[in-house]
């Protein structure tokens, strides 16, 4: 019962936080609500025995990506934004599309059944520690995409510099 209550708390708070993110007029507020959301997501990861990912979530998402957002929000002139209309004219269309997708998703998930289980039982992960377990998968089977991920970050660096540089 306790885990269910725990999950219920996380679920409700996360839904509320996401609604806040997409509805706030001031982007700074959205960023801050998002920060709160990311901490909750990290909490949920802990709850799912994924300590390493929880740490990455906090460090990378909350610590790096959101700071970047905040930075840009601050840099841009936002007075106009606070005054302007926050939703597009066609917002009912967007909401109906979303609502329909949600309904269809639930119809689909109704038919869900779990696939065959693998070898990393919770006990094994606990014995090995999550960091070590994920590391052993990441550096053996997934070594090549890991390298590719590093290249993606390289592209991001090159791209960001080329694009954001001031013209001489």
């Amino acid at each position, binding site marked *: 019962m306790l885990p269910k209550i725990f999950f219920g708390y996380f679920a409700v708070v996360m839904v509320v936080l996401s609604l806040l993110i*997409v509805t706030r007029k001031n982007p700074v507020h959205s960023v801050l609500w998002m920060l709160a959301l990311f901490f909750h997501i990290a909490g949920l990861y802990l709850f799912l025995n*994924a300590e390493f990912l929880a740490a990455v979530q906090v460090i*990378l*998402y909350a610590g790096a990506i959101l700071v970047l957002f905040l930075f840009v929000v601050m840099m841009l002139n936002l007075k106009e934004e606070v005054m302007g209309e926050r939703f*597009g004219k066609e917002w009912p269309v967007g*909401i109906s599309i979303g609502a329909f997708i949600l309904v269809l998703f639930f119809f689909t*998930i109704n038919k869900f059944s779990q696939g065959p289980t693998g070898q990393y039982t919770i006990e094994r992960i606990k014995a090995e520690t999550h960091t070590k377990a*994920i590391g052993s*998968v990441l550096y053996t089977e997934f070594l090549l995409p890991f390298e590719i991920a590093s290249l993606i970050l390289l*592209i991001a660096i090159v791209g960001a510099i080329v694009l954001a540089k001031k013209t001489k």
Partner: protein
Amino acid sequence: MVPLEWYIGLSTVLFVIGVVGFLIRRNILIMLMSIELMLNSVNISLVAFSHYLQDLRGQVLVFFIITVAAAEAAIGLAILISLFRNKEAVHTDEMTEMKG
């Protein structure tokens, strides 16, 4: 134990909120944030699946998704800065130079 369906449900709701935010907001920054929201909802479901399937590959994919999200955010914001410098605009409604 929490049923796996609950996680899928939560993830779906968050994903749809992200989609809706993406579809209705005018501010590009918030649109980018909605995308982050969608990606995070996928991450939640992947971690949950990974946990229930007793298989770590889902979590490894999450790892890649976070990397890509960071890269996309960086470049998106860089283009935004460049655009802002040229046009003083952060609204999508002002990006209609090309159409037809």
